């Protein structure tokens, strides 16, 4: 933490708002997270809690307006996203894979065209054959069957899994330290999901990249990542070493989230958490999770909890007024 310039990604007190008819949507009220070099970080939480917003802000592709983003909050490899120059150099240092591979490839251009355009700006002035070889290598890298045919295809001609492999290949063409993966398997079949995540894991390890992985596949998060951030309604509620958080979750939301995944042992599908994420307009004054929390007390409705160390440890933090009361879970 001391040497900030060494961080692959450093977000400090990021806020993202939208102005709408009903008022201001505080999608991200004030979020901090960091990713060290060659570290793999997971980001989990239910749909609509702001994970994609955080990633898009970090890659400087969140559209503003309509979003109002505090841009100086984000630093990628020591460079702030603030300003035009910042945006450009940040984009140079970030790769990102999107949720839906069918919408992240241009429907009107051949795969080879899309890949060449990336290569041309990364490695200008090479020969056509060289670019072609580089593309074939890149596709080979993601274990793509029949790469020659894929290059000559349009996205519609490929299956979902193939498209996502192409996306990963394209994202890896740029030599960056930081890879952001926004639910790369949500739109895919379960059978393909594991293949893609294994591939991503392998490639990131090989190239010693930092990774931020957003996924609902908690098993994969556990397998792949070193640390995990748990988000709820725009806030980080718990952060710590993946293994420790998964084994001894402290925040009631984390406990519920982990319990909601079906387990092989035990009584099949678990309970989940009753209720919905609160409205982002006029969010509750206290803890945003209070309305759904089994440990809720008057204190929780009054003041929002801040992230505090667990057992005096720097690397495990929980935002809950009742973090210590593990027994109640």
């Amino acid at each position, binding site marked *: 933490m001391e040497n900030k310039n060494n961080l692959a990604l450093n977000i400090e007190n990021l806020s993202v708002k939208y102005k709408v008819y009903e008022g201001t949507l505080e999608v991200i009220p004030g979020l901090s997270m960091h990713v060290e070099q060659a570290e793999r970080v997971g980001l989990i939480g239910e749909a609509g809690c702001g994970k994609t917003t955080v990633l*898009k802000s970090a*890659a400087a*592709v969140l*559209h503003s307006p309509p979003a109002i983003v505090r841009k100086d909050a984000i630093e990628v490899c020591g460079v702030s996203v603030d300003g035009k120059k910042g945006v450009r150099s940040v*984009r*140079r240092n*970030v*790769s*990102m894979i*999107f*949720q*839906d591979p069918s*919408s*992240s*490839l*241009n*429907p*009107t*251009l051949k795969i080879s*065209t*899309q890949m060449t*355009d*990336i290569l*041309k*700006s*990364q490695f200008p002035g090479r020969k056509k054959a060289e670019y072609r070889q580089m593309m074939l290598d890149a596709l080979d890298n993601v274990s793509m069957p029949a790469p020659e045919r894929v290059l000559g295809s*349009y996205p*519609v*001609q490929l299956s979902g899994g193939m498209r996502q492999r192409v*996306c990963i290949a*394209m*994202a890896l*063409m*740029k030599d960056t330290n930081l890879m952001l993966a926004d639910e790369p398997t949500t739109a895919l079949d379960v059978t393909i999901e594991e293949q893609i995540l294994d591939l991503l894991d392998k490639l990131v390890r090989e190239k010693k990249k930092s990774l931020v992985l957003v996924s609902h596949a908690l098993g994969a998060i556990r397998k792949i990542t070193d640390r995990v951030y748990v988000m709820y309604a725009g806030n980080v509620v718990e952060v710590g070493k993946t293994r420790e958080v998964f084994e001894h979750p402290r925040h009631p939301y984390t406990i519920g989230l982990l319990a909601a995944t079906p387990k092989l042992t035990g009584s099949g599908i678990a309970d989940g958490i009753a209720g919905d994420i609160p409205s982002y307009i006029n969010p509750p004054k206290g803890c945003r999770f209070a309305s759904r929390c089994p440990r809720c007390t008057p204190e929780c409705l009054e003041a929002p909890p801040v992230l505090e160390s667990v057992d005096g440890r720097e690397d495990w933090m929980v935002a809950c007024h009742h973090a210590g009361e593990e027994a109640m879970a």
Partner: protein
Amino acid sequence: MRKTILAIVKKLLHTIVLLLVLSFVVFSFIRLIPGDPVRISMGPMTPEETIAQKRSELYFDRSLPVQWAHWLKGVVTEGDFGESLFTHRNVAEDIKQYLPKSLELVFYCAIFILIMGVLVGTISAIFKNSWLDNLIRFISYLGVCTPAYAIGVLLLLVFSYTLGIFPIGGMPNIPDNYVRTGMMGLDCLLVGDFALFGQVFKCMVLPVLSLSLGSIAYMARIHRGAMVENINADYIAFAQVAGVSQGKLVMKHLMKPSFIPTLTIYGLQVASLIGNAFIIEVIFRYPGFSQYSLNVIQNKDPYGIVAVTFVFGIIFAVVNILVDIGVAFLDPRIRINTSE
């Protein structure tokens, strides 16, 4: 590719049937007109026998299907569209004389509209929400609301009457031995008379401008809208993060998909130009097909009206098919058979 060709052939057949039905409908419609068109055209003083003879010549004394079949046979076998009661010539000759001139006018407009509409729309989208964008949007909004005749009058007032740069209307005489295609400018070029082409060109500037400006405004709005919408697409964000250069991103990755809605609207605009051209032809005294159509319609000339609607139908259909081909060319989702 086979999918596209099949679709086009199917559409072509469909259109032919549609046009045949259309001509039949127009024939029956003409029969509904109160009064005898032959009598109206030949005047009240003409003796009854002459009228009767003319009526029989034009198959007006036969049943509707017979008249229609006779007309159709003439069109298909000899390109004979029947006799006009307005010009007293075969309508085919009238078409040959007037249609190329209108097509030339519309052709220049079509090119001008495509280039300017896309250019202005792109600039507007790239500098979204800047003062330039706002200015362009303001002017194009106004342009969409302004009738072609008002633009024509304004241009006349400024460029002809006040500045005296362009003539107030009319076209130079093209010598008979020049006529190859019937298009005035093109004929001059084919003959090699560049001086006369210059004159023709000068006379066509204001008509082309008056006819195009409204469509340019509309095209610019559509193209800007398409580009601005596609800027939010995931594939643009992905290409941006993946490292495609800014220029390529805008001019290729953003431009190509944005062309799909633009092209569709472009087709509609070009087709409507042909219908709207008559006002401009009237204002600038341009001897074109639209003005001829207007005369034919106002004089209730039966064979003229059938031919005019038929020709417009063909032009509409051709433009539509060209647009379909263009869209298929741009959008592989239409071109390629997918199992999805």
